[in-house]
């Protein structure tokens, strides 16, 4: 295969027309929405976070010119397209229940007790349509009403807590906080306990490894070549 010429083309920069909070700008088509704002001269403090799709801060809505539909995206993960009307959302006002996880019981009614408004869900699926993570939000709200904590935990796992579901819900539910509670209940009470981890912690408390560790520390300070030898000769078992 060597010798085959894989052509590396450099395209001239294609520009698109976008409308940032109503103002028209031309920006390169290779940008995402966040970078398009910056290219146009804006500097973010709100509506921005990790820029990698993990924090939900830049979740936003957009529309196309002459189209009634509202679209949803993470601004840092969405390419700009011609005719986009863009904005940023600085903050999501939302209620969060306060609880002591140690005092909760993982029974079916606990989600309803702490978030009684989930019973108001009209199954309109607007939350699901708004989710930039493509989660089945309505399905997990319905599971929460049924008290299926495990189902809520699993369906909501990829949630980055951007809040778009809560902003769109006509029943004023805050799905992402319900998901957070369910995941913690599942992780603490329902998922099988990590027995090996607990056993290892007991061994560490009993100082089982301290002699060897202290020996390595001494070698690191006094005889680094010996330590390197031990390192190189350690058995590698990762298969």
């Amino acid at each position, binding site marked *: 295969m060597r010798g085959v010429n*894989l052509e590396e083309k*450099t395209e001239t920069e294609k520009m698109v027309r976008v409308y940032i909070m109503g103002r028209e700008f031309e920006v390169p088509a290779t940008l995402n929405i966040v970078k398009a704002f910056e290219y146009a001269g804006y500097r973010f403090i709100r509506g921005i976070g990790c820029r990698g799709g*993990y*924090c939900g801060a830049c979740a936003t809505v957009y529309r196309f010119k002459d189209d009634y539909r509202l679209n949803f995206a993470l601004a840092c993960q969405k390419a700009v397209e011609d005719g986009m009307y863009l904005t940023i959302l600085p903050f999501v006002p939302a209620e969060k229940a306060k609880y002591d996880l140690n005092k909760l019981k993982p029974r079916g009614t606990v989600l309803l007790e702490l978030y009684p408004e989930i019973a108001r869900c009209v199954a309109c699926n607007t939350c699901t349509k708004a989710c930039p993570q493509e989660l089945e939000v309505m399905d997990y709200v319905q599971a929460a009403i049924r008290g299926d904590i495990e189902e809520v935990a699993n369906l909501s796992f990829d949630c980055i807590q951007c809040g778009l579901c809560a902003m769109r819900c006509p029943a004023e539910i805050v799905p992402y906080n319900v998901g957070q509670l369910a995941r913690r209940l599942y992780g603490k009470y329902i998922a099988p306990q990590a027995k090996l*981890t607990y056993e290892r*912690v007991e061994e*560490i408390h009993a100082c089982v490894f301290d002699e060897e560790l202290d020996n390595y520390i001494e070698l690191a300070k006094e005889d680094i070549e010996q330590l390197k030898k031990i390192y190189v000769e*350690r058995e590698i078992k990762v298969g």
Partner: protein
Amino acid sequence: MWSEKLRWVNYMERGYPNYMLESIEFVKQTREKRLKEIPPLMSLEEREQILRKYHPDYREDSKRAIKVGINAGELMPNEVADLIESYPLIQPEQIDLSTIDYDVDILIIGAGGAGLTAALWALYSGVDVDRILIVTKLRLGDSNSKMSQGGIQAADCEDDSPSLHYLDVLGGGHFTNDPELVKWLVREAPMIIKWHEELGVMYDKDEEGCMVVAPGGGTCRKRMHSAKDYTGMEIVRVLMDEVRNLEIPVLEFNSAIELLMDDAGKVAGAVLWDMEKEDYSIARAKATLMATGGFGRLHVQGFATTNHYGATADGLVMANRVGTRIIDMDSVQYHPTGSSYPEQILGLLCTEKLRGRGAQPVNKYGEEFVYPLEPRDVEAAALIRECARGNGLVTPTGMPGVWLDTPLIDIFHGEGTIEKEFSAMFLKYKRFDIDMTQDPILVYPTLHFQNGGIVINERAGVVGVLGLFAAGETTGGVHGKNRLMGNSILDYCVYGRRMGIYSADYVQNANVGKLSLDHVTKYVKLLEDTGIPNRKAPILLPEYRGERTLSHALDLL
């Protein structure tokens, strides 16, 4: 739900230009052969050679020795040295220190993994909730901590031990780590996992409760614990939830811009800058905890970065001015695999766990050129070498890259594995019409982690400065000159916890004298005497505005 997904697979376009699709054909042709054989691990000598020749740390003129202050002589990347040798944002005489806006025992600067963990453990250790204050320049939880994907190392499996973990950490760091700090890192790792379990963190486990573990670059055992490829986010959102439940005070959009000292020379809080209102306030504290994170947004040597918008090394700048020693800044961690294509996600992380589960780096001819799980610096150097040899592709925007053959993961572990274990990564590419279960992804090293930083002791106390603690990415010593995968989450957990516990202990008998910014005045004098040009730091946020705006920007007020 399933029919929706199938429909998408059938009708999606492949999001690559034609010349990349041609190269992908080569990758497919060699796949069967590569299933059976992979290149061998390098010897210590080979590692040394490739690092010297190809790792960005060894490029000439990329670093310089600091000229002023406690860290004079210390070698740092130019981008960091510029910040260390910078004038403050404030003029000390402008600041009114007679009115205290926040008076607390423990001031925590930064609300990522280390800051949140420290806040919880300070509270558990008996500090009154109203005597703690977390300040952050963005939102609660905003941090690199939240972005870590692959996992957290802990030696809790049967054929593993903290001692083996210890060897891996030192070997990965080329034996430059602080041997004492590493002991607590590996020794307390299983306890951290247990604590997380008690908080309800959903780690990947099998039906018996056994942790699903993967290897990482430079590890001799499989000890990477994960929560799909959202490990950092899962941990941080649980910590955030707990901080909110316990109602620990948090001040968002407030950045510390200068540390305060008292007349006895102890650190005594910080000057805070309200990012929105653009005014300052004074926070007085018996103990000040630096959880300010790393420096990826400095774009060292022009590299793209995996880091959070706020990763601008503010902590180093402030700590340096109170006389804190900073080490190992001469080594920078470039993650071997950042996204090289498409441009919209340039530099974003493609977790090492992909290679841990079988993905192989291959060149544009479909050939393997390196063992997939060398320590990060070695692996990154190998990718840079392959592109320098002309065996990489170049994207339409001019970025080099080689393939990471991700479909192998499903071949090794069964169809659906990628979608299940790497749902974040899968979605990231799907958004740009790339199906990483069928086609490889294009990657190149990206600026990832600040290996060095503030010198701390095993109690997370900053060495040589009273009243100041530090943990997480802003510190140095734990990882030496190269960090292994899965040890950064562990670092902010172990040392964040220790920072909370030992600062709580410290404040019991601590007091604060008369507040002062004399150290800043003195540092300005040093800079002037050395002839340092006028530039200011901390920078708080990077500057990405377009040329037209920057060339016409005015500060009218």
